[in-house]
């Protein structure tokens, strides 16, 4: 059985499935005319697109209301601050999660499982309603939401840190311990520097998903990208498609460049490790 023949057979199966999908589309077209109808409807829809809505409101869409942080700036601010603080939380809980002592490990496990089992929107609601009770006075919703993002993202960061530490391998720890370093010294001077370097792409990925998650601040009415565009949509009333697609495009540009950066970093760091 030659390699070439296996390759050919795999290719044939995949193209057979591809052609069956195409065949279904052609059959739909011939039977109901629905494919061409769909395309014509899309073209008709494209004809009615009103770009003037975007161009007249571009400043508000990107920067939000005047004399206040909003729009794209607030989105990146929320994501950035939360990422930095969540890194601290994640480092602490990731180290706790890796600890050999049960009374240190289990609180971290409980925190991580609790947060990972909840939808982000529930976390945000908890903090928005709980923190005023705890502090005794109402603080700005921006801070409530940042605390919620830090708590939520910290659990995912802890898992990243844990995976990064596990990926370093036992040999390093044993070698360092046998030279006379303590566990803590080994962690700080030997394991963490290597592990953190490996984790950089995951951090960039986390920044990307945090940027996407900041759209949930719409539920509590912060003036970030989603809220601002839904405001404009409610004011203009006739052009929701254009406005939300524009908003999606802005998010896409940010997130796609971040994920491309993460992929680039991954290959670069792998090349350095060899």
């Amino acid at each position, binding site marked *: 059985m030659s390699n070439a023949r*296996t390759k050919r057979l795999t290719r044939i199966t*995949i*193209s057979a499935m591809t052609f069956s*999908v195409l065949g279904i589309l052609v059959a739909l077209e011939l039977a109901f005319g629905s494919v061409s109808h*769909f395309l014509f*409807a899309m073209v008709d829809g494209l004809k009615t697109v009103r770009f003037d809505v975007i161009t007249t409101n571009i400043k508000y869409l990107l920067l939000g209301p005047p004399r206040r942080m909003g729009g794209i700036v607030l989105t990146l601010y929320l994501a950035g601050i939360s990422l930095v603080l969540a890194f601290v939380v994640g480092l602490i809980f990731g180290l706790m999660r890796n600890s050999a002592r049960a009374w240190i490990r289990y609180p971290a496990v409980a925190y991580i499982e609790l947060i990972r089992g909840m939808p982000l929107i529930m976390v945000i609601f908890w903090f928005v309603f709980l923190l005023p009770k705890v502090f005794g006075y109402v603080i700005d919703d921006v801070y409530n939401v940042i605390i919620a993002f830090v708590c939520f993202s910290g659990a995912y960061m802890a898992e990243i840190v844990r995976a990064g530490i596990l990926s370093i391998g036992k040999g390093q720890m044993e070698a360092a311990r046998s030279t006379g370093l303590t566990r803590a010294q080994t962690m700080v001077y030997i394991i963490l520097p290597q592990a953190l370097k490996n984790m950089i792409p995951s951090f960039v990925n986390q920044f990307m998903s945090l940027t996407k998650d900041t759209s949930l601040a719409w539920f509590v009415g912060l003036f970030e990208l989603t809220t601002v565009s*839904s405001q404009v949509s409610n004011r203009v009333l006739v052009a929701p498609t254009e406005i939300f697609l524009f908003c999606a495009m802005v998010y896409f540009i940010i997130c796609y460049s971040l994920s491309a950066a993460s992929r680039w970093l991954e290959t670069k760091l792998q090349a350095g490790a060899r």
Partner: protein
Amino acid sequence: MKRTPRELFIEFRLWTESHKRIAYPLFIGVALILAYLVYRLVITRLLNIHISYNFDFSVFLRQRLTDKSTYLSLLLWGFLTTLRISAISIVLAMVLGTIIAVLKLSKIKVLVFLSSAYIEFFRNTPLLIQIFIWYFGSDPFLPQVVKDWIYSQNIEFAYGVIALSTYTAAFIAEEIRAGIQSIPREQMEAARSQGFTFLESMRYVILPQAFRIVVPPLINQSLNLVKNSSLVMAIGVVELTHVARIIEAETSRVFEAFSMVTLIYLALSLVISFAINQYNRRFLRYIKY
């Protein structure tokens, strides 16, 4: 015999190790009591903050003013809606995701580009914006047949299902593609050299392995889908999170409603991650990554 404190401590640790079942719950209990005492000391004595909130879980047995149903039945309805929207969406997303994964693996450049564009667009934009695009802005793009069908349904629910399944399909497509590509080509060659036909080696060698590798990420995606389904409250589907907001708004019992809903979500996610663990324990023993 006089023992040093250190020896006593070591003996204590040995006892706790040999009596884990008794010792750990005791520790947890003592730790909780200590935490409560520290909390009372710091919060109420030093910071002088008095949190007075009396939990009243009988709120769920109260009747709503709008109709004569209780809040418990509303909660149950929300739970069922979450389950229903997740179940329908995961099935649709699997079908769509498999098709897109196969298209991405095909050799036709246009189809590869289209499927990659689909995956990148849906992975790199927030779900909330996608829900808004489907619900408020899909009107010019959808053909009349589809629109008629959707308007004959529960509209919010239908758009919620569409948004969730198209979003999740992008993630599932990547998982399935990675699963198919993770089986080394030599497996197929080895199976063929044993005398299996192509279909037999697919059936007995390749697909069982690919399936086992793909299933845990797929269960994980369905867990994510259950959590993401809370976002369709933005367009007014009455699911679990929306029920929490309704109870909070109508009775102003914030923490009862939220803790109940949180517990339900936690139970769901624990059940699903238990399923993943059992699956890994039973089927993934022999597969080395």
